[in-house]
């Protein structure tokens, strides 16, 4: 297992930005906690894939993107959706399958699409990668200075769609970033059961694309790597492959822990929880006196308020009717 890397402040970062990273991760974590409660109470009627432990990856990407940049996300969508600026109220309504959800309530947790924010979603493993490449191609053809980021997990590396897209992106020098969250598990299968090469970023080198493997639990490291990749893409220098190693705390889908049902060793889960991307960064910021406990409490109160408002919005929204769907096919 990889040891937690040290936080290293790069020269371009000021304290305001560093606090922003923290606030974003805290926001995503607190929303996840609230949603997990809903799931445990059996209020959610669609499969929900949580991102506990994977907040730094989402925020490290989101903080580097502009509104007109695009991301294509996966079934594990909440964290990158929120990090890209996706609307919280609409997300909660969507997960509750309400009419005012971001996809009208009919997509659920696995279809958090928000075209107005350039957030697109595919729940088929590897399915969104080529779509991100297509968005990158459209930016090129329309002479827009934007970037597309494909989120995918280590499981997607086994799919042909990734290889096909790597070739095309390298060939056309597309303005895109391949962002792989390697959490070492595809559903319940450990990487050792499914892959000959565990350092998945090596696949990109076969296509002459720059590839970097980073600690995905270290927000500063993620931010820096994504910044370099996004700058390359924006400056017409082509695509980059980033492998961010991380760990999902909960089961593949649902609100429970895997070690309870014996699917993963408890020791492994506990070790990764001790490397929490949020807590470790909080500790670092406190130590460097970039932030204090009073400010943290203030953030929490603020986020709680937003969460409450989102649930109220969801409560007010009705369920959609089948009749209304006919015209959208």
């Amino acid at each position, binding site marked *: 297992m990889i040891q937690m890397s040290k936080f290293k402040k790069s020269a371009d970062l000021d304290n305001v930005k560093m606090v922003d990273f923290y606030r974003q991760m805290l926001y995503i974590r607190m929303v996840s906690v609230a949603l997990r409660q809903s799931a445990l109470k059996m209020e959610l009627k669609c499969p929900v894939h949580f991102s506990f432990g994977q907040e730094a990856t989402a925020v490290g990407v989101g903080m580097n993107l502009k509104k007109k940049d*695009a991301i*294509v996300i996966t079934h594990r969508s909440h964290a990158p959706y929120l990090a890209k600026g996706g609307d919280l109220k609409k997300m909660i309504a969507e997960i509750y399958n309400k009419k005012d*959800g*971001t*996809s*009208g*309530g*009919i*997509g659920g947790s696995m*279809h958090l*699409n928000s*075209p*107005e924010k350039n957030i*697109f*979603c*595919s729940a*088929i493993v590897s*399915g*969104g*990668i*080529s*779509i*991100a*490449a*297509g*968005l*990158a*191609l*459209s*930016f090129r*053809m*329309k002479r827009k200075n934007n970037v*597309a980021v494909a989120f995918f997990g280590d499981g997607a590396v086994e799919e*042909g*769609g990734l290889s*096909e*897209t790597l*070739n*095309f992106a390298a*060939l056309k020098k597309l303005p895109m970033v391949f962002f792989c969250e390697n959490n070492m598990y595809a559903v319940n299968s450990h990487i050792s059961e499914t892959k000959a090469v565990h350092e998945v970023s090596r696949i990109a080198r076969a296509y002459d694309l720059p590839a970097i493997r980073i600690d995905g639990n270290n927000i500063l490291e993620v931010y820096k790597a994504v910044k370099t990749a996004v700058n390359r893409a924006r400056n017409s220098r082509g695509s980059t492959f980033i492998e961010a190693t991380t760990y999902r705390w909960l089961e593949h889908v649902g609100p429970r822990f895997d070690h309870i049902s014996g699917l993963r060793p408890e020791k492994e889960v506990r070790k990764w929880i001790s490397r929490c991307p949020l807590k470790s960064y909080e500790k670092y910021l406190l130590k460097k006196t970039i932030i204090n406990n009073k400010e943290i409490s203030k953030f929490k109160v603020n986020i709680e308020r937003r969460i409450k408002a989102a649930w109220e919005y969801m409560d007010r929204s009705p369920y*959609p009717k089948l009749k209304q*769907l006919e*015209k*959208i*096919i």
Partner: protein
Amino acid sequence: MRLISYAEAINEATFQLMDKNPSVFVMGLGVTDKSGVFGTTLKARAKFPDRVIGLPIAENAMTGIALGAAAGGMRPIFTHQRMDFLPMAMDQIINHLAKWKFSMGGKGSAPVVIRAIIGQGVGGGWGQACQHAQSLQAIFAHIPGLQVVMPYTAFDAKGMLIASVCNDAPVIFIEHRHLHGLKGDVPRKMYEVQLGKAAKLRTGKDVTIVGLSAMNIKIKIAVDELSKYGFDAEWIDLRSLKPWDEKMILKSVRKTKRLIVADTGHKSFGAGSEIIATLAEKLAGKLKGVKRISLPDMPVPAGPTIEKEYYPCANDIINAVFEMYGKKPVSNREYMKDSEPEVDFKEAF
């Protein structure tokens, strides 16, 4: 009257679409070749080389790229030389393209046109065999969110390609290789032929014969021959398989009480099955005869004699009508020989 070929009509429509709208572009394996996919991409390439993009052989990801480009405001025409390679792209077509708008609750649009060419081996003894001569339209027509069109005339090829590219939902645009050489009267200007509307090519009262794509070539021969025997057939070119023109066919069959559907695909769960089932629901007890003319439930074999046995011909259509009227079937070698038009096989394929 301005006679140009079906392939030339597609070539012209593509060029005009790209000339009018800078978001339209062509992508596909071989679209930049000298032969330009049977001549259909040449004009566009000569004028807009940056918007005619040759692709690697990676049908699935390339379909995703077409979809992503469409999500980014482009209007791709993704061209395949053979429909048999579309199964490589099924994840993107079925899971993504067809679901794009729906999964966003109706917000997004995916104006992707996928051109697929079928009929590479029909009757000509070209031996393209089981992986290079398939007509898979029924598979796509089954999927909500996809439109499937199969123009027969050069006029429709142009008008329906323009309508398809201007449509905000994905279209599978199917061309039969034997139609590429057929000439028709095609206006020079841009025009749209509305998707979902069939075309009545002959008015009659005794039987309704619905044809898809190149099956219309055989129907044309059959209806002329049938008239010599005193049968007055109504001939409808379906043109658009999904959505299909239920209204026109229903009206025709109400009159004729008899329906033959001639399809280029396999019999089971095919276009004929769907159309006849729908009519059976609507005209329960009123139908006096139905028949599917289609490929057997067997992959396409290769070989000059066996292909003639395998593919339905005009004689099969004639006999289907005879059977409905209790008349003894005839075996006419002339119609068995086939009704294929002259196709220029000089091009490499």
